[in-house]
């Protein structure tokens, strides 16, 4: 399982041959994330994806530029958006000769897109790329019922009047009711929150610990905005200038008043509330990736190197592991392959699907028994102190437009390590500054990656 693939990088993350040049993060852009039904309610995925690409183009002066590839995805996608990314590129200020394709890996779409494009750059197949993601839960696709769809398809194939009548006759009034998407695991029928409630109970994560993490997310995100950290990472959209979900004035007292929403039927006390869970969100993000040469030729800055990535999946459907626990398995493999420990990272960015998702992962890595029996490690993987974890806030405060979260994390992480590296200049300039990124996703998936200051 932990065997290195043949093109695995050496631990330093530096290129070892001409075929393994570096893939770097030039910068990113995202829209402020909005709550479902909020200011972006009328905006489509294509609207938002185009806007976020245009913001990126404006930030880096890429008008009319042919980018090697733009890859992007949306988790909730209309059928007419079969070529969502290409259509968005055509509507953007990029050259219409810029190729594009769609990607989808549930909530890990954004990070997986970065990883895939970075690999193409490392292989020399691309010199530049934009990895993006977008999602709207406000303009989610509404499907027709299976019966109506089948009847309509039959009708479209029918030739004779009799066949047509027969097809129409098969439609029942209840078939006409639209079917909205539900955020449930198709295999289990449980919502993500219900799944996480099981894992939360299993690891004994307390309400107080979850609320404390949620509060830190809001406090840190607000502080980062106030400090101008997002001035070159966010472009306003539809009058929204900051993440709509952000509550700068949140407090443990306020979070404590919220009634639990998930796990209320479990025998253990319910601890998960709307305050320590991520809301349904609308938004988009994009990351500009390049080879060192392309960035230099375009006089663009280089923030970080995409060092390596690892994906894992868990068998959540048969009760073995929690739905959102896959990153717990991916990270030790990623660290082993790169000869690193958790202590080798200046920053850790863990997507806050729920506060307890992060806390369960931390608990698992600190658990001797679990790490021995399930991760095959000699003992506990280690712990992550909170002053390195999600230092500018994360999804609990910002919101989580599924496919857009990976881009948000990567751009934020790249800027964090670049700033830290700049601070070290003169004192400890040679010390590598790394960030570990972890995203859990529906279907028991987890994608993790390492970035290092360039």
């Amino acid at each position, binding site marked *: 399982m932990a065997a290195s693939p043949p093109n695995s990088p050496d631990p330093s993350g530096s290129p070892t041959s001409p075929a393994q040049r570096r893939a770097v993060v030039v910068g990113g852009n995202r829209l402020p994330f909005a709550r479902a039904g909020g200011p972006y309610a009328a905006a489509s995925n294509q609207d938002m994806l185009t*806007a976020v690409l*245009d*913001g990126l*183009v*404006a*930030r*880096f*002066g890429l*008008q*009319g530029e042919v980018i090697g590839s733009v890859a992007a995805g949306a988790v909730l996608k209309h059928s007419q958006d079969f070529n969502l990314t290409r259509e968005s590129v055509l509507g953007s*200020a990029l050259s219409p000769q810029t190729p594009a394709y769609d990607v989808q890996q549930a909530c890990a779409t954004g990070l997986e897109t970065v990883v895939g494009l970075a690999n193409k750059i490392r292989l020399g197949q691309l010199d530049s790329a934009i990895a993006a993601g977008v999602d709207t839960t406000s303009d989610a696709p509404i499907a027709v019922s299976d019966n109506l769809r089948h009847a309509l398809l039959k009708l479209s194939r029918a030739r004779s009047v009799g066949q047509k009548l027969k097809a129409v006759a098969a439609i029942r009034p209840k078939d006409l009711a639209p079917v909205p998407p539900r955020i449930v695991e198709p295999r289990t029928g449980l919502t993500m929150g219900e799944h996480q409630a099981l894992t939360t109970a299993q690891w004994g994560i307390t309400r107080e610990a979850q609320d404390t993490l949620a509060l830190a997310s809001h406090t840190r995100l607000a502080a980062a905005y106030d400090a*101008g950290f*997002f*001035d*070159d990472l*966010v*472009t*306003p*959209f*539809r009058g929204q*200038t900051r993440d709509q979900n952000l509550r700068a004035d949140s407090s443990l007292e306020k979070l404590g008043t919220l009634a639990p929403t998930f796990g209320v039927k479990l025998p253990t006390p319910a601890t998960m509330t709307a305050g320590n869970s991520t809301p349904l969100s609308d938004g988009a993000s994009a990351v500009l990736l390049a080879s060192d040469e392309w960035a230099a030729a375009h*006089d*663009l*800055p280089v923030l970080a190197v995409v060092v390596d990535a690892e994906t894992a999946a868990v068998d959540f459907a048969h009760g073995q592991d929690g739905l959102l626990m896959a990153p717990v398995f991916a990270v030790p493999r990623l660290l082993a392959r790169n000869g690193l420990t958790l202590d080798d990272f200046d920053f850790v960015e863990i997507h806050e699907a729920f506060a307890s998702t992060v806390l369960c992962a931390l608990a698992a890595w600190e658990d001797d028994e679990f790490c021995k029996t399930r991760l095959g490690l000699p003992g506990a993987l280690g712990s992550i102190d909170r002053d390195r974890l999600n230092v500018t806030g994360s999804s609990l405060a910002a919101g989580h437009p599924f496919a857009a979260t990976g881009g948000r994390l990567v751009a934020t992480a790249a800027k964090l390590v670049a700033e830290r590296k700049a601070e070290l200049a003169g004192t400890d300039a040679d010390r590598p500054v790394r960030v570990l990124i972890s995203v859990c996703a529906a279907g028991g998936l987890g994608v993790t990656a390492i970035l290092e200051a360039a």
Partner: protein
Amino acid sequence: MTDTYLNLVNSGFTKKMAKQLGLPRPAPLVRFQAGQPLVRGPVLVLAAASSGTDADAVGKQLLGWGLDVRRHASAGDTFGAVVLVLTAIAHPDELAEPVLATGATLRSLARGARVVTLSRVATADDAPAVAAARHGVDGLLRSLAKELRGGATGNGVQLADGVGVDAPSALGALRFFLSARSAYVDGQLLTVDTTAGTLPEDWDRPLAGRVAVVTGAARGIGAAIAETLARDGATVIAVDVPAAGEALAKVANKIRGTALQLDVTAPDAGDRLLELALRRYGSLDIVVHNAGILRDKLLVNMTPEKWAAVIAVNIAAQLRINEQLLVSGEFTRAPRIVSLASTSGIAGNRGQTNYGASKSGVIGMVRATAPLLTAFGGTANAVAPGFIETDMTAKIPFASREIARRASSLQQGGQPVDVAEAVAFLASPQAGGVVGRVLRVCGQNLVGA
């Protein structure tokens, strides 16, 4: 925004009605378009007897620009411009002949015609009669401009002693006043202080190869400045506060520039502007301080917050950015600073003590900053807009807005691009001899004469 009145009195039945009622009939102004002739008809060069040599030199230059230059008016001529050369006059008596000759042409000027005087600045060192003659041009020109109709304007170029009519900025200013770029500049006298500056290789792209920063570029006048500088060949970094980022990105993408979300009051704003410009484009040559805010309140009701915010954005930020640019040692390639002042900063405006102080401060600032840049072939100047049709002025109540519009000699408000054209001229290589001056773009508004 749309000036409905202007449209009504210039078309159809309502045009006829306005004529019969004797209502003010503002003319649609002719604005710059690529490829249009510099002047809409023959140019008549008139001169005081003493100024014949300069008039000849000017005429030669105008011919070089491909204009149809005449030295005498004939019956039936419709002139696109009259250039009145008064550079050598030593006594007010010398004005009569050329001025009266000018007057004889005013009935037969083309629409959007230009009257431009060329004279010299009166100083305390002049003989009293010389100073009287030179300064007389001031009142002459301003009054003449108020007589002009049909979108015609009158402006003057005032040369400092030692600056010839062939100095780059003398020619640059003359050409600016003759062209449609100065459509809403009226009744103004612009002083050329030195012979610095260079004439552009391509008059249509005088800013080619220059890197410019425009603050407050997301909308209105700032967006127009960014677009106009880009049209004239500059590479533009469009700056605005992060909250205006969406509109800013659109502007940047339209002009193939770069958007920088930055609050100009940030302590390191100047350094960050410079860093981006140097890294991305290799230099920073032009800074347009356009970002500004209004917090109107009668002084009797003024709050510390409203006062401080206006001063911080409108003048303190400019001072800090300029200082950072000057000490960096990187702002040395014939640099240009163009700051947005306001007619409120010249004539004052009720309820705008804070704004007036900041904008008047801008005028003082450029006067003192320009000499610091001359060693590098640089300069700093200000543009003072009058009533400009923007989202901001659209919020003025209807009656006040109408009065403000009709109060100018051109009987209408200006467009953001009119301000942008003046900025672009002052940012150009040919404006290097204009040192610390203020150019008003107000249609010769009554406010402040």
